[in-house]
């Protein structure tokens, strides 16, 4: 955690800040989702409460708070109340391991802009985000309703099925970079495209050195699987209204419902962040290395601390812009594609994406072995 009281305090504040970052992003995302869906479907969306309907979020929060707290007789109360609380945890824990910007260096201290630095970042994130299946099952079983139970079973079967494709699609990425550490991965993607193959150095001034150019198939598979992991359309079979009412949160209302929402949006944010880290250069600016930004910042500001703050801010902004773009793609896809049927969903996961991910792994190994590619 740190060496002295100051460090430990800063670390704890940082962890709280990462969690609040997710929580405060949810109302904004809900607003963007509702306005965006209205825009896509040629409607107005929320536009009465405040300018552009922005205060709708506040009104919603008040409404959620004043709802009666209610649990049906048949519910198993401890599970019923624990499920929404534990739905918050997996996404936030995993998101805290993602580096959001370059470390801040002030007065002999180095502050990492991430919850905690992990050498096994990828394994940790996959393991923790997989725990989401438990909260879904807790909600489904604890509600004591057949719709909840069926929805929970569907959702957990879907989540674990797509976890295979998700995990296998990253094997190629790990092979390319040779590390589990997310910061090292981002460092490898800095600057303009440059790699070694057949003993020659190949460079391109116009393309950034991003993972998507080395692992395009893995990027597609990973993105599709992260839709399924966060239970979003076109994979939101857990909430097929026509079949099982609202899935595992049929019996929930008010604030407990909102907490499931925060969990779902947290998984969206996590999936987008991982896409950025693996395939789109993380916090790096396209084609520009961190050192170039740092030397530019040193010219603009005076003092090492000022330059460091400016560099960190620029990279944080870069990460945020990428994150917003990916979140918009999540929302865009939701309001564009129809829902799958359950057997189609399972077929896609097991018979299509898993073999393709396996093929990508073998292909990457072959290419690395025979051309000795080095990034």
């Amino acid at each position, binding site marked *: 955690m740190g060496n002295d009281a100051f460090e430990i305090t800063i670390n704890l504040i940082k962890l709280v800040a990462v969690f609040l970052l997710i929580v405060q992003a949810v109302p904004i995302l809900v607003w963007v989702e509702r306005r965006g869906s209205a825009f896509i479907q040629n409607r107005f969306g929320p536009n009465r409460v405040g300018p552009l309907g922005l205060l709708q979020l506040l009104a919603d929060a008040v409404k959620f708070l004043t709802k009666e707290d209610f649990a049906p007789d048949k519910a198993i109360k401890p599970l019923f109340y624990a499920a929404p609380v534990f739905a918050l945890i997996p996404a936030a824990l995993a998101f805290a391991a993602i580096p959001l910007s370059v470390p801040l260096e002030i007065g002999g201290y180095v502050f990492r802009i991430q919850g905690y630095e992990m050498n096994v970042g990828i394994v940790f994130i996959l393991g923790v985000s997989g725990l989401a299946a438990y909260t879904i099952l807790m909600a489904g079983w604890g509600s004591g309703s*057949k719709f909840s139970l069926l929805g929970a079973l569907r959702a957990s079967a879907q989540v674990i099925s797509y976890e295979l494709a998700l995990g296998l699609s990253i094997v190629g990425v790990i092979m390319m970079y040779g590390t589990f550490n997310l910061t090292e991965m981002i460092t490898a993607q800095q600057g303009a495209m440059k790699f070694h193959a057949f003993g020659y150095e190949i460079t391109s001034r116009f393309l950034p050195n991003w993972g998507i150019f080395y692992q395009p198939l893995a990027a597609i598979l990973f993105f599709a699987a992260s839709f399924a992991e966060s239970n979003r359309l076109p994979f939101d079979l857990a909430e097929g209204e026509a079949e099982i009412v609202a899935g595992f949160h049929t019996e929930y209302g008010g604030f407990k419902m909102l907490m499931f929402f925060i969990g779902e949006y947290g998984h969206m944010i996590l999936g987008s962040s991982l896409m950025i880290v693996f395939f789109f250069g993380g916090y790096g600016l396209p084609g520009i290395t961190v050192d170039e930004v740092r030397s530019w910042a040193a010219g603009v500001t005076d003092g090492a601390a000022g330059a460091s703050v400016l560099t960190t801010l620029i990279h944080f902004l870069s990460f945020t812009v990428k994150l917003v773009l990916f979140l918009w793609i999540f929302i865009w896809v939701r309001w564009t594609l129809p829902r799958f049927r359950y057997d189609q969903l399972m077929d896609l996961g097991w018979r299509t994406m898993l073999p393709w991910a396996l093929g990508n792994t073998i292909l990457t190994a072959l290419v690395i072995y025979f051309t000795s590619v080095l990034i």
Partner: protein
Amino acid sequence: MNTVAAGMPLGGVIFMTIFIAIFGYILIILARLIGGRRTNNSQVKRDIYECGIPVQEKRETKVSVKFYLTAILFILFDIEIIFMYPWAITFKDFIGSGQGAFVFVSMLVFIAVFIYGLFWEIKSKALEWD
């Protein structure tokens, strides 16, 4: 130079879990205090959701065995995938030290078993949903 949060991420993970759990329970208690809670609800309100008819089913709903089968298959394949991770991370090092061919071929054998398992699973209709 001190590196904040470089070591002991476990402490951070435990703190975060406890913090979020407390945060969530405080929110639930707050919502209960503000939203209130009626005690004399009618039986219909206390029932679980049903589409406009009296509640039909007990908790012991029969569940398709396919879900259990999927979970078991997931465990098998997930372990096989996890075995690939250490191989993937050291692959370049092995090529560098001249043992690339051995490591590559042994992984191909492993992947062949994986593919055979997947093929067998599809052929035995374990993944058919009807």
